[in-house]
C-alpha cells in the first residue's frame, strides 16, 4: 500500500482531539468525562478510548441525569460504558431535588435543564474533579465561538468571557489552583457535519432516537415534542403519532423531534446537508428564549 502523508480533515481533527485529551489527562489530577448519551459525547468518549488504547480510560465517565431522559438513551449509556470497562458516575438531579438542594420548576413547561448546572457543579466539587471533558463545539452557537479549548473555571465554576487565557499553537495551559477546574472541549473544532461523517466512517454507535421511528408527539412552539411521563400536551395541543427522529439528545421535556424517515447514517447526513436550521434552533426549546441565553448560562457554570 502506498503511504500517503496527507491526512483527511477528519483524521486531522481526530489527531487534534486526541492530543487535547492526552494533554488534559497528563496535566490534571482528577479528570472526568461528561457523557450525555448524545452524539457529541459519544464521539468524545470514542476519541478518549482511542487516546489511551490499549489501556483503559484513565478517568471515570459522569452523566448528569435529570431523571427526564429518553429510556433509550439510558440503556445506551449503560451498555456503552460497561462495554469499554469504564467507571460510570451518575449525578442525579432527582436526588438533588429530593434532598432539597434545588427546587423544581412547575407547570406544563417545566424543565430540569437549568437544574443540571447545579448538579454538575456540586458533583465536580464533591468529587474533586479538576478537568472536566465536554462535547461542546464552537459551531453550535455564537457564545461558543470564542470559548477556549481549555476553559478555566473559578472555585464557583464560573466562566468569565472577558478573562480567558490566550490559547496558542497546540500548547495548552491547564494550570489551576485547588478548588478550581478546567473544562476541556476536545471537539471544539468539529462541525455537526464532521461529527456525522466521522460517526459513519468509524461506525460509532448512537442511541436509537437519532434515527427514524414512530412516536406520539404534539406541536409546541413549532417543534414536535414527545409525549412522555415527564411532558404531556396541554388541552389545546393535539397528540398524534408521527414518523420522527431527534437531531440532538437532551431532556425529553425540552428536546424537539422532527419528521424524518432517515434510518441510516448516510440518510441522516443527506438530511443534515439539506437542512437549513441549526441543531440548536431546531431542537432546544430552552435556547430559544433569548439571544444571549447561552452566554448567561455559561457564566453560571453550564456546559
Amino acid at each position: 500500500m502506498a503511504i500517503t502523508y496527507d491526512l483527511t480533515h477528519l483524521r486531522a481533527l481526530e489527531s487534534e482531539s486526541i492530543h487535547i485529551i492526552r494533554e488534559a489527562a497528563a496535566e490534571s489530577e482528577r479528570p472526568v468525562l461528561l457523557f450525555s448519551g448524545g452524539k457529541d459525547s459519544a464521539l468524545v468518549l470514542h476519541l478518549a478510548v482511542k487516546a489511551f488504547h490499549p489501556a483503559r480510560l484513565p478517568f471515570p465517565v459522569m452523566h448528569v441525569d435529570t431523571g427526564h431522559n429518553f429510556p433509550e438513551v439510558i440503556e445506551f449509556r449503560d451498555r456503552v460504558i460497561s462495554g469499554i470497562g469504564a467507571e460510570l458516575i451518575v449525578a442525579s438531579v432527582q436526588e438533588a431535588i429530593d434532598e432539597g438542594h434545588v427546587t423544581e420548576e412547575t407547570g406544563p413547561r417545566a424543565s430540569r435543564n437549568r437544574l443540571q448546572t447545579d448538579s454538575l457543579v456540586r458533583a465536580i466539587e464533591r468529587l474533586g474533579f479538576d478537568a472536566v471533558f465536554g462535547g461542546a463545539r464552537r459551531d453550535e452557537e455564537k457564545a461558543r465561538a470564542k470559548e477556549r479549548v481549555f476553559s478555566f473555571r473559578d472555585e464557583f465554576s464560573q466562566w468569565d468571557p472577558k478573562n480567558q487565557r490566550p490559547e496558542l499553537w497546540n500548547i495548552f495551559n491547564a494550570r489551576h489552583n485547588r478548588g478550581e477546574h478546567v473544562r476541556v472541549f476536545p471537539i471544539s473544532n468539529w462541525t455537526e457535519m464532521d461529527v456525522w461523517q466521522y460517526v459513519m466512517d468509524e461506525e460509532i454507535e448512537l442511541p436509537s432516537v437519532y434515527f427514524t421511528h414512530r412516536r406520539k408527539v404534539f406541536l409546541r412552539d413549532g417543534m414536535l415534542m414527545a409525549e412522555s411521563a415527564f411532558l404531556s400536551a396541554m388541552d389545546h395541543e393535539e397528540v398524534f403519532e408521527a414518523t420522527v427522529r431527534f437531531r440532538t439528545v437532551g431532556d425529553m421535556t425540552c428536546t424537539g423531534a422532527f419528521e424524518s424517515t432517515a434510518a441510516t447514517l448516510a440518510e441522516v447526513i443527506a438530511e443534515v446537508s439539506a437542512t437549513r436550521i441549526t441543531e440548536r434552533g431546531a431542537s432546544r426549546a430552552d435556547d430559544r428564549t433569548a439571544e444571549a441565553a447561552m452566554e448567561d448560562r455559561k457564566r453560571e457554570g453550564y456546559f
Partner: protein
Amino acid sequence: MTTATDHRSMELVRMATTGSVDDGKSTLIGRLLYDSKQIFQDQMDAIEEASRRRGTDYVDLALLTDGLRAEREQGITIDVAYRYFATPKRKFVLADTPGHIQYTRNMVTGASTADIALILVDARHGVLEQTRRHSFLASLLGVPHLVLCVNKMDLVGWDEERYNEIVADFRSFASRLEIHDLRFVPVSALEGDNIVDESARMPWYTGPSVLHLLEDIHIGSDRNLIDCRFPVQYVIRPHLKEYQDYRGYAGTVSGGVFKPGDEVVVLPSGFESRIASIDTYEGEVEAAVPPMAVTMRLADDIDIGRGDMISRPNNRPQVGQDIDAMVCWMTESRALRPGMKLAIKHTTRWAKTVVKDLQYRLDINSLHRDESAESLDLNEIGRISLRTTQPLFFDDYRRNRHTGSFILVDETTNNTVAAGMITGATGS
C-alpha cells in the same frame, strides 16, 4: 452539496483573518459563510431581524460573526472567534481576529495555528499602518501564505489602476518581511464580487476568487517532514493481561517522518533505540507524520517520561537552557522585565525560567528596534533571552513551529502571559 463519501478526500485548512475596523472583514466572512451555504435559516432570520432593528436597508452579513454581549454593546469584536465552513475540497477553520492595535495578542493567537492569513484593506484607503502591522504579525508567526483582499472595489469604480497601486505598495513593504507566498484579490465583500464567484465587473483581473484561492493554495508541504521530533505526551501502561509488558509513548508528531525500524535517540537521556512499532487504535501504521497522534514502542526498555523528546541520532533538536526568542506580551496585570521569573511550557515540557535580558522592543508599525526599552507591556513585542531550569529540546521557530514555540505562564495567577518564538540558543 456533499455526498456521503466525498468527505474522505477533504483537507483541513486553518486560516486567520484580520483587517482594520470597517475594512469589511465581518462582511467578507459573512459572505464566505453565506455563499458556501453554511448559514442556516434561523441564523439568517435572526440577522434579518437585527438588520431591520438597526434600520439598515440590506441584510447585514457582518452580524453573523458578531460575538459576546459585551462586544455587541461596544459594536466591535474583541476576541478571537472561530468559524467553520467547508467546500467539497476543504474544511476551513477560521480564526477571526479584530484588527485594532489593542488586540495584537488576539491576532498573534489566531495566526499561531494558521496556514493562511487573510488580510483586508479598504481600496479607498490603501495600505495603512495597520495593514503593515497585521502582515508583520503574520510573518512573525510564520503563517506560510498571505492573501491580501483589496475590498470595497465598488467604491473606487472597480478601478484597475487603484488596485495595482495598492498591490505595488504592499509588495514593496512585504519585501522586508518573511512571507513566502503572497496573493492579491480585488473584491467587494458587500456585493459578493470575487468572494465565491469570479466577478464580471473586473474583467482585468483574471485570477481566482477568494474562495477558489483558499481551496487551491497547497499547504501539505508547509509541514516539516525532515526533522523527526516526537515530544512524549503520555506513557501508556495498560496493566491488562493481554498487554502485560506493553509500554507505549503517546504523543503528536511535531516533525519528520517516523517509521518502524528507525534508529532513534531519546532526550534528555541520550539513550538510543529503535522504533518497534507505531500504534494507533486501528493497529500499527507504516509511518507517522505531523500532525498524527500515535503511540510509539521502542525495542529497548528505557526510562522515558512525559516531556522527553524522541528524535533521530543524526538529526537532533538543539538542547539548552539559554534561549533567545521573540515574545508577544499578553497581559496587562504586569509588564515583562529582566529578572522576572515565570513558568514556561514548550512542547509537553514545563520548566521555570528567568528573563535574563530584554534585547529590544520592536515597534510593530515601523519595525524599529528600541534597544533602550526596559519592559514590555500588553500587546508589545520584543526579543528576549531566557534561562530555564531544565534543558529544552528545540528548533528555531522558522524551521519548526511546534518545537520552536512556547508559552510563558505567570505562576501567581496561572495565566498565560506570553507567546514565544525561538530564534536560537543565546549567543549563537
